[in-house]
C-alpha cells in the first residue's frame, strides 16, 4: 500500500502551508493568538514518544519555523497525548471544546469532530487549497496543521465569513453574482483564499488575484468568473465583464 501521508508526515510538507499575510502586515502574524515554538515542541514531543510523530518532533525546528511568535498566549504549554485529549479551539470567535488525538489535523477536527464541513478534504496534502482557513489571519490549508497546533489561535472558516445576522461577505456575494462556482466543492477554499487576499491587498490587480488563488484547484473550470468576483468584491470593475448583447 502507498504510505499514508498522515501517518508518516514528512516534515518538509509543512512548508506547503501557505502564508499569505506578510509578517507585521494586515492579516499577518503578530496579531492575537499563536503557539510558541516552545509550547509546540512540548505539545508534540510528548505524543511523539509513543506515536509516529517522532519524525515530526525531530524536525520541530522546521515545523515551528513559521510559528515563531515570541511568547505563548494563555496559561502556558499543555502536556497532551498520547491518548485523545480535550482541547479548546477558538473557531469563528467561539470557544469550541473538542476531543482529538495528537495526530488529528485541524481539518479532521473541523469535519469529523465538529461537523463543520465547509472546509473540504480533497487532496489531504496541501496541494489543492479546498480546506483553506484563516489561522490568526494567515491563509493555511487545514489538512497540513495539527489541531493541537492551533490551540490559542483564532481560526476563521468559511462558515465564519458572513456576519452574525447572515449578511454575506462581499466575496461570497460576488461569487454568486459572477457564477464563480459550479459543483461548489472547491468554492469554500477559493472564497477563503480570496478573503485572505483582500485582507492584505484591498485592490488587487488581476495578476495578483491569479497568483493569490494559485494554491487552489477547481476541476469544473470556473477561474475567470472567480477573478471577476474578486475584482468586484474589491470595488473594481470586472476586467472580463459582459459587454456583448
Amino acid at each position: 500500500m502507498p504510505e499514508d501521508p498522515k501517518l508518516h508526515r514528512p516534515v518538509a510538507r509543512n512548508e506547503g502551508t501557505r502564508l499569505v499575510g506578510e509578517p507585521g502586515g494586515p492579516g499577518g502574524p503578530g496579531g492575537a493568538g499563536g503557539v510558541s515554538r516552545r509550547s509546540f515542541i512540548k505539545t508534540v514531543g510528548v505524543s511523539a514518544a509513543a506515536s509516529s510523530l517522532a519524525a515530526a518532533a525531530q524536525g520541530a525546528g522546521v515545523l515551528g519555523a513559521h510559528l515563531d511568535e515570541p511568547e505563548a498566549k494563555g496559561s502556558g504549554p499543555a502536556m497532551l497525548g498520547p491518548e485523545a485529549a480535550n482541547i479548546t479551539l477558538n473557531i469563528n470567535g467561539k470557544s469550541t471544546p473538542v476531543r482529538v488525538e495528537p495526530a488529528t489535523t485541524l481539518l479532521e477536527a473541523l469535519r469529523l469532530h465538529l461537523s463543520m464541513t465547509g472546509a473540504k478534504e480533497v487532496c489531504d496534502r496541501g496541494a489543492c487549497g479546498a480546506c483553506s482557513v484563516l489561522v490568526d489571519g494567515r491563509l493555511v490549508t487545514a489538512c497540513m496543521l495539527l489541531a493541537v497546533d492551533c490551540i490559542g489561535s483564532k481560526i476563521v472558516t468559511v462558515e465564519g465569513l458572513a456576519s452574525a445576522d447572515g449578511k454575506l461577505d462581499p466575496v461570497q456575494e460576488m461569487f454568486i453574482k459572477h457564477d464563480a462556482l459550479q459543483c461548489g466543492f472547491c468554492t469554500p477554499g477559493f472564497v477563503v483564499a480570496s478573503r485572505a487576499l483582500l485582507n492584505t491587498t484591498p485592490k488587487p490587480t488581476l495578476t495578483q488575484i491569479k497568483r493569490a488563488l494559485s494554491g487552489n484547484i477547481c476541476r469544473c473550470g470556473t477561474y475567470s468568473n472567480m477573478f471577476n468576483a474578486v475584482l468586484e468584491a474589491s470595488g473594481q470593475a470586472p476586467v472580463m465583464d459582459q459587454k456583448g448583447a
Partner: protein
Amino acid sequence: MLDHTPSDMPTTNRPANAGSSLNDSASRLDGPAKVTGAAKYGRDMHLPGALYIAFVRCPYGAATLDSFDEDAARAVPGVVEVEVRGKEGKFHGQTLGRIVAESPMAGKRALRALRCRWTRKAVRTSIADSVDALPEPSDRASSALDGAELKLEAVYTTPVQPHSCLETHGGAVEWKGDKAMVYASTQGTNAAREGLDKHLNLPQSSVEVVCEYVGGGFGSKLGGPSKELQAAAAAAGKYKRSAYGFSNRSEEQIDTGMRPSSQTLARVAFTKDGTITGGEIHTWGGVGVARGGGGCNVRAGRYKLGIKKAGHEDVGHNGGGPMPARAPSFPQGAFAEELLVDEIAFACGMDPLALKRKLVGQDVYREMFDLGAKMIGWEKRKATGSQTGTVRIGYGIGTASWHSASPGGEAAVVVHQDGSVEALTGTQDPGTGTRTTMGIAAASSLGVPLDLVAVRIGRSGLPRGPASGGSSVTPMIAPTMMDAAEHAKEQILEIVATAAGAPDARAFDIVDGVITRDGKRHMAWADACRRLPAEGITARNRGRAANGKGGNEGVQFVKLSVDAETGVVHPLHVVAIQSCGRVIFRKGAESQVIGAVIQGLSNALFERQVFDRNVGTVLNDNLEAYKILGPYDMPHIEPVLWTHGQTGVRGIGEPPLVATSGAVACAVFNAVGAPVRDLPMTPDRVLGALAGKGGRS
C-alpha cells in the same frame, strides 16, 4: 510575469443574431449554500457512530498477495472487521479486501498492520506495450498512397486522464432501524439506489437516496452505486449502524474510472490543393483491465475527410478501467483529426482556416469560423514555422459536434395556497446548473418570478428524471418541466375564470406573477392562489413536451505563446462559439462553456497519468504531480452562445470540450513549425518537436 489578459476584452460576447435567454440575470439557486459552506455533500455526512470503510488495494500493476497479518490488523483498536477476498491484483488500486473500523484513522492503522507481502509480475502499462507493430495499409489505401501527389503518415496519442472529481466517489448511509438514508455522490440518484436494499437487508421502499450536491462527476459517477457506497451499505446492513465509504485522493485517481488513452494512425493521400484522395485511419483505446470503453471518435460529423476508418481496437493493460469522461471518445479523436488537417494544410502551403472551411460538413461551421476568426484576430497569424524568436505566437482552430436527446422523463409542479411553487423531478445537479435551469424552466412557463420556485431534485422517489450524462438532462427534462408548469398554469386559470364567471379561461394569462385578463391586470398571483384547494394543485407533465430546432456544433479559436527555449506553452486567448439552442440559464450555460474549455486546455497541456513501466504503479495518484490547470495558467476565455434561429433546448456540458485540445495542438504547430502529436504537450515534447525529433517521448 506577464499578465496575459487583455483588459479591454469582454468575457461574454453574444453575436448580433443571438436570441435572448429565458433568464439572463438569474444566479445559481444553490449559490448561497455553496459559498457559505452550508451545502452538505455526501462526503460531508459524518454521522454519529458511523463505521468507516478502508480498502486493501494492490500497490502494483500486477502482483500476488503472498501473506498478510489479519490478526494484527484485527487487533488495532477500533477495527471491527478485516476481510481479504482476493490474492491476484491486476492493476494499481484494485481492491482485494476491506477494513471496517470505528474511525478513518483506525482503518488506516489496520491497513498498515496488515503488512501485505506481494510478489510482483510483469506489467503492460500502455497501448504501445500491447500493439507491437502498426498494421500494414490495406490494398485500397496502398494504391491511393502509392500514386499520391502528397501523403502523410502520422500517429497521434492521448494519455490516460482520470476525472479527478474533487469530491471523491462514495456515499454515507444513515441507519435508522427500519429504514436507511443514503447520501450518495452520484450522477444518477435513482440508479445509485439499485441493489443497496440487498446490502442493507431492507425493502427498497425503505431505502432513500439523497443527493442534494455533488462535487463533480464528469461521467465517472454514472452507472449505479459506487463500490465505496456498496461497501458502506453492506457494513451498515451487517452491523445495523451508519456507515461511511468514500475513496481517498489516491484511490480516486486510480480506481474510479478515467478517460482512456488513445492512439490514432492516419495515412492520407492528398493533392497539392488539399483534396484528400484516399487513405485510412486506425484507432486504439487503452482500457486498462476493462473489456471495452476505449473509444476514439475521429469522425463525428465535423470534417468530411472522405477516407475510411479502418478499425478500432480496445487494448488492455495493467491499469484501472475507463468510465465515460465528459464527451467520451470525442476529444481524443478530434485532437488527432484537427492536427491532421492542419498538417495537410501545411504540406499544401494552405491557411488551415481555408482548408477547414472547405472540409466542414455544415454551413453553420463556416459562419462560426468567420465570427471566431474576427474575434481572435486570425489575420495576425504568421505562417507555420516562420517565427524564429524566443516567444512564438500560435493560432489554432478546433471544431466540435455532438448529439441531442429528446424530451422525456417526468416532472411535477406544485402550487400552494400561499403562492409558493415547487418544481420536482428526479435528476441531480453535479455542478451543471440543473437545479437553477429547472427553476427557470418552471417559473417562465408558469409566468411567475424565479424566487417563488423551490426546486426539488436529488432524491429518490421524485418523478423519474434523467441521469446526468450525455449532455441530455436539459434537452430531456427542461421541456418536460415546462410542460408540467403549463399544465399547472391552465389549472389555475380555470379556477380564476370560474371564480370570475368567465366562460373561457383562454382570456386569462399569468405574466410576471400577475393574473391578466385580455392582456390587462386581473388579480395578483397571491390572490389567485388563495382560491386553490387546501392541498394546492399538483400538475404533471402531459407528454406535450416538444423540442424545436437547435444545434450542437461548436468552433474554438486558440491563441497561445510558446517559449522556444523552455518549451512552455501558455494559452493566451480562447474564443469558444457553441451552438446550444435556446438558452435557459445564461450564466450557467456560459460557465459550462468556460469550464469545458479549461478542462480541454488542461487535458492538452498538463494531464497524464504516469505509470512506472516496470512495476505498473501509478506515480502521480495525487493532485500535485497530476497537474490540473490552475488560476495562473488561465487565458482569456470568451464563450459565445450561438442561438441563431434556434428554438429548441440543447445540452452544453460536453460539446465545448471536444474542440479545445485539437485547437491547442494546431496552435502549437503554428507557433513552432513542427507538430506535437502526443498529449499532453509538455515542454519536453515541444522542445523535441522544435529539435526536429517529431515530438515523441
